[in-house]
């Protein structure tokens, strides 16, 4: 799976000035619907991270969108002819998740969107997210606002009484993770396999924000978990527990991938039994 690397920065910047005219129109549209979008159908979950409403930022996002996304997702995110989904109701969370995990942009829409090194840098991501966030306004469909980027509450610190406000405990995260996530992602977050060749990714690289976003947006084939199932606090707890799983307490020594009995069997047979067999061979004859 080769991914064609393009350099978005230079071309995006230079085009920004050229396309200043149409961009102002977009900015006006955004401003007009900004209020609507805020009061209207925000996602059911409560606290979300602020997404820039600055027309300049949205414009910058538009430039990037036109170069890297529009060929599939269509102008203004109305969806493409090749089956690519419309993005109007995608929301900031989805945009942020797909971009920061490197799943988008996708060279070939038929490819599997798997985790890669992110294609856009932090600023470009912010601009694109702002643009996608503004899509309901741009398309004059304020009711289609997708979920915003969830805010993750801090994890409680062990062994102190001075805890950050609204912190979540690992034990809450463990319980929720075990019930809702472990069946696919493995109890240690190692990943697994779903039907139809869908690889379930390991969570070792997922940031807390990405975990929370994924829970809320349900990137297919993963199911979605709405506010009616998991509260914001619970989502934060899971996200923080996943951070813990990046480096879980391996009191027993090398974790050998945290994949359970299969690697353990290999190590036991090849390293353990093999070593003993080698030693008994080296010991030589008994006489």
């Amino acid at each position, binding site marked *: 799976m080769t991914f064609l690397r393009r350099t978005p920065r230079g071309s995006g910047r230079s085009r920004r000035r050229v396309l200043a005219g149409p961009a102002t129109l977009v900015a006006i549209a955004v401003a007009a619907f900004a209020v609507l979008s805020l009061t209207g159908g925000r996602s059911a979950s409560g606290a979300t991270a602020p997404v820039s409403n600055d027309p300049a930022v949205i414009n910058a996002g538009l430039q990037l969108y036109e170069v890297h996304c529009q060929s599939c997702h269509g102008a203004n995110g109305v969806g493409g002819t090749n089956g690519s989904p419309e993005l109007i109701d995608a929301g900031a969370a989805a945009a942020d998740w797909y971009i920061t995990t490197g799943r988008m942009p996708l060279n070939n829409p038929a490819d599997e969107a798997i985790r890669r090194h992110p294609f856009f840098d932090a600023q470009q991501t912010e601009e694109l997210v702002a643009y996608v966030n503004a899509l309901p306004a741009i398309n004059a469909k304020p009711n289609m606002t997708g979920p915003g980027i969830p805010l993750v509450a801090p994890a409680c610190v062990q062994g102190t009484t001075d805890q950050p406000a609204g912190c979540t405990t690992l034990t809450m995260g463990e319980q929720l993770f075990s019930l809702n996530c472990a069946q696919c992602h493995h109890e240690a977050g190692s990943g697994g396999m779903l*039907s139809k060749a869908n690889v379930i990714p390991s969570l070792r690289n997922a940031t807390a924000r990405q975990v929370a976003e994924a829970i809320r947006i349900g990137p297919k084939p993963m199911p979605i978990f709405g506010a009616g199932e998991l509260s914001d606090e619970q989502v934060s707890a899971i996200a923080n527990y996943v951070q813990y799983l990046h480096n879980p307490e391996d009191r027993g020594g090398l974790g050998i991938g945290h994949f359970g009995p299969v690697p353990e069997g290999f190590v036991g047979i090849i390293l353990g039994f093999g070593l003993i067999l080698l030693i008994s061979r080296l010991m030589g004859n008994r006489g």
Partner: protein
Amino acid sequence: MSTTEHHGQRADDMVDQARDPALDPEHFFIEPGEPWPDDVPRDQDVHWWRFRDDPKGARKAELKIIALWGVVPLCAIALMILYVVGGQPQLEGLFLGTAMICLATGLVIWARDLLPGHEVTAKRNHQGGSGRLERTGAVVSLSRGIEGMARRPFLVRMLGGVIGIFGLAMAFPIASLGARPHRSLYKTGWATGKRLVDEDGRPLRPDDLPVNGILTVFPEGDSHANEAESDKDPQSATVLINLGDAKFDVRPGTQDWNVRSSTGLIVAFSKICTHAGCPVGLYNTQSHQLVCPCHQSTFDVLGGCNPVFGPASRSLPQLPLGVNADGYLVSTSDYKEPVGPGFWNRS
């Protein structure tokens, strides 16, 4: 056992044989009085050891052993200190292993280089069993009793019968090992009007579940159909799925088993795999398939959770759903068929 006459006779033999210098007393596998076998060499130097004629080599080997064994007390002290300060698994394993391996290596060098040991050849014992006379003797002894018993065939038969009946009585306590396979195989905690609650016991409304959402639910105030101590009857575990606008294949007679929320169709299926009973937890929202993580049985939710791949051969039973007057999701009855894997009396 041999008789005393044999014993005496044998002792005399041994006195004679001991004077024969050809019979090296080191070769114990060759019985005195037997001819020396062709395939056993006579000149086996059983006192040979590796550095017998090489004092320098022997000294070197000794030094090696001293160095290796010197490590052992160091490890032992380290282990003691570790224990006192609270322990650390990696260091414990390291010191334990090192101590044992050093001790063992020293032993091997000692045995190999400084102790007598030479490949020897001897006659095997127990070749093809005993001689005819011994065999006959055994048969005679055995039949002494058997013949006596055979004279009373009734007693033999009766003994068999008596032991059989007594054994039967002894087998009765097996029944106390477990309850009779009872209704928990056929019934779950679901019943008409039972509210669906999540893990925390919170009742659910249809709109709590977004499209492509999945949730494990339980009957409210679980009835403990099993006498299990766990707070929820595992047989009742059910997955609730919002299918959105996907086309769900409603089977005849189940038209009113689903609930439509503002966003889509809500269906409920048993979470217990019909193959080997694992919780069918993996939901693929792209293909609308439930997958069992144990043996990869795959169920097509849109087709009524019928098995489409893997070893499962039966659909996951569907739970009839309804909404009560307060707007909460309820079951309108128990499952219509036993949940979980098959068994002899299932159908």
